[in-house]
């Protein structure tokens, strides 16, 4: 090119603004509820990861001689009817909840995300067909699905994850379809086409990355819902095979002793509540911070 570079001195001298990420972190750190939720989640993750180190007893070790013990120095939260240490079961229960929550949402995000993006991007008959399939999925209650899967495929954590994730696919699919449809109309997507970019490249490289903040926010809150779903299922005895420690199951097992040993049910129940609340607060905070940036303009 023959033209010499222009040097506009004031353009060169522009000061660097605080980058998006720093502003976001700055804002988040100031939000008390978000911080509370984040701390709870981190603690939960630590608990799950370091369970063998943290738990004083093996979670499934029965000890009939000390069954239904009251909280003491040895058993900080007492024991259940089979003599298993409640605290250890609580700690190991975090694993179950976390695995189910993350796995179910991850599967739903991937499957729902792909379906939604393809539907939104291609449009027309493809969109109509995919969205009707998603609608059908949505009409299946999660509980019924879990029961059916348990009956057909047998019990186990895997089927719980499958049931929950299938029931979560429709919301993610619809979210991605809506996001894709909106983003598709923006000028920067038209710009890609006007430059000659192939469609798939635009979909993967331009549309999807712009849709992910919405998915991130929604997904975080759905983890809480998934954990709640798992607790509900294991409370009903579906999926989780005893003697695996799971918070919902612990609530159920402690029920007969609610009057005399209330902590057996209440403590795991409170754990579920705290964790779900924490994920919701984190999701809220993320949404508040990401929302104006979602629109692209200040």
């Amino acid at each position: 090119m023959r033209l010499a570079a222009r040097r506009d001195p004031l353009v060169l001298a522009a000061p660097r603004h605080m980058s998006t990420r720093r502003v976001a972190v700055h804002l988040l750190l100031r939000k008390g509820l978000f911080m509370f939720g984040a701390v709870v989640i981190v603690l939960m993750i630590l608990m799950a990861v370091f369970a063998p180190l943290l738990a004083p007893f093996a979670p499934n070790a029965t000890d009939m001689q000390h069954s239904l013990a009251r909280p003491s120095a040895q058993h900080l939260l007492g024991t259940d009817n089979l003599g298993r240490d409640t605290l250890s079961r609580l700690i190991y229960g975090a694993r179950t909840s976390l695995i189910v929550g993350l796995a179910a949402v991850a599967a739903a995000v991937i499957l729902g995300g792909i379906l939604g993006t393809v539907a939104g991007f291609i449009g027309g008959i493809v969109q109509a067909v995919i969205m009707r399939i998603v609608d059908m999925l949505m009409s299946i209650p999660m509980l019924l699905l879990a029961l059916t899967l348990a009956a057909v495929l047998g019990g186990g954590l895997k089927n719980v994850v499958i049931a929950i994730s299938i029931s979560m696919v429709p919301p993610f699919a619809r979210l991605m379809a809506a996001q894709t449809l909106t983003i598709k109309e923006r000028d920067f997507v038209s710009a890609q086409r006007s430059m000659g970019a192939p469609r798939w490249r635009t979909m993967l490289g331009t549309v999807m990355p712009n849709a992910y903040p919405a998915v991130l926010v929604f997904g975080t809150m759905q983890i809480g819902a998934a954990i709640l779903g798992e607790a509900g299922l294991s409370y009903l005895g579906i999926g989780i095979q005893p003697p695996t420690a799971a918070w919902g199951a612990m609530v159920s097992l402690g029920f007969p002793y609610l009057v005399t040993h209330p902590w057996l049910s209440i403590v795991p129940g409170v754990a579920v509540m705290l964790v779900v609340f924490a994920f919701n607060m984190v999701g809220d905070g993320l949404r508040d911070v990401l929302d104006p940036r979602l629109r692209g303009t200040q």
Partner: protein
Amino acid sequence: MSDPVAAATAGSGDTAARGPILEVRDLRVQFRTPLGTVNAVDGVSYELYEDEIVAVVGESGCGKSATQLAVMQLLQSPPGRIAGGEVIFEGNDLLKYKKNGPEMRKVRGGQIAMIFQEPINSLNPVLTIGDQLVEAYQLHCGLKGQTSTQVAVDLLKMVGIPAAEKRVRDYPHQFSGGMCQRVMIAMGLSCSPRILIADEPTTALDVTTQAQMLELMRKLVRQMRASLVIVTHNLGVVARYVERIYVMYAGRVVESGSTKDIFGNPRHPYTLGLLKSVPRLDEAQGCRLVPIEGMPPNLIDMPGTCAFLPRCSYAVERCRTDSWPELTSVGDGHRARCYVNVEEVGRGPAAC
């Protein structure tokens, strides 16, 4: 007041008062943002006299809209707030009234009316035009009880909408942008206010519609002997319709004067820069525009010196060391906020 049009065009009985009808003194408005406090309006003073058309001119971020919103106490309270100053209207300081108190509500709409940039956004999409006109009329004039739809029809006729009897039952989405703006003008003028503030009233409109709108506004305010404040960045509109101008930059008035003084003899480098950078329909072919170099200022962390300094090609040593000058008189009714007060000729049609 049963006939708004007759009442409006009858005008006020008094002859022109000697003092200004609106006086803004040292108004300050701040916005709190995560990155710091923005001094959007940083000590703005101006006067408005009876029966005149005045413009507040500037680019985005200069504070011209924030000033008018502050006068009307329409600022969004977080994050904005009025940090100081007075707005004297008919002997009272409007800023002393409570934002939604009875005195302020009486002034707002009834005595000082305001119309905004996007007319379709100012109208409620689920109510008919007639209903909204009647509601505005009742609120502005402080009436209670039933008001007939005839009021709405008369108002539509006043702003030149054909087939008013039929259109009064239409919804906003059935009106074009230009017609919506006419409806807003009708609402604003329904109780013959003393002042009409128009915030970028024509920016969203087509050129021919723009011309119609401005002619209409001028005609009506002249009939009502009201004063019109046009907030705009369009220098052409200003040159054609306006008698006095306030030029704003970075939250302050940098030059003020009659239209002929400002265009014919601009003294502030920013004003001069604007005039030289705007293309004119009647200029000679091959003219090159002289842009104002650099970028608009960052209103957070402003230095004490002149805000225009980084972009000014006329700066002298004093500009770098002293704080921003006060507004000083450079002619009859003509003031500028500058140590240099340039004396270059503004562009004429043949010159470039």
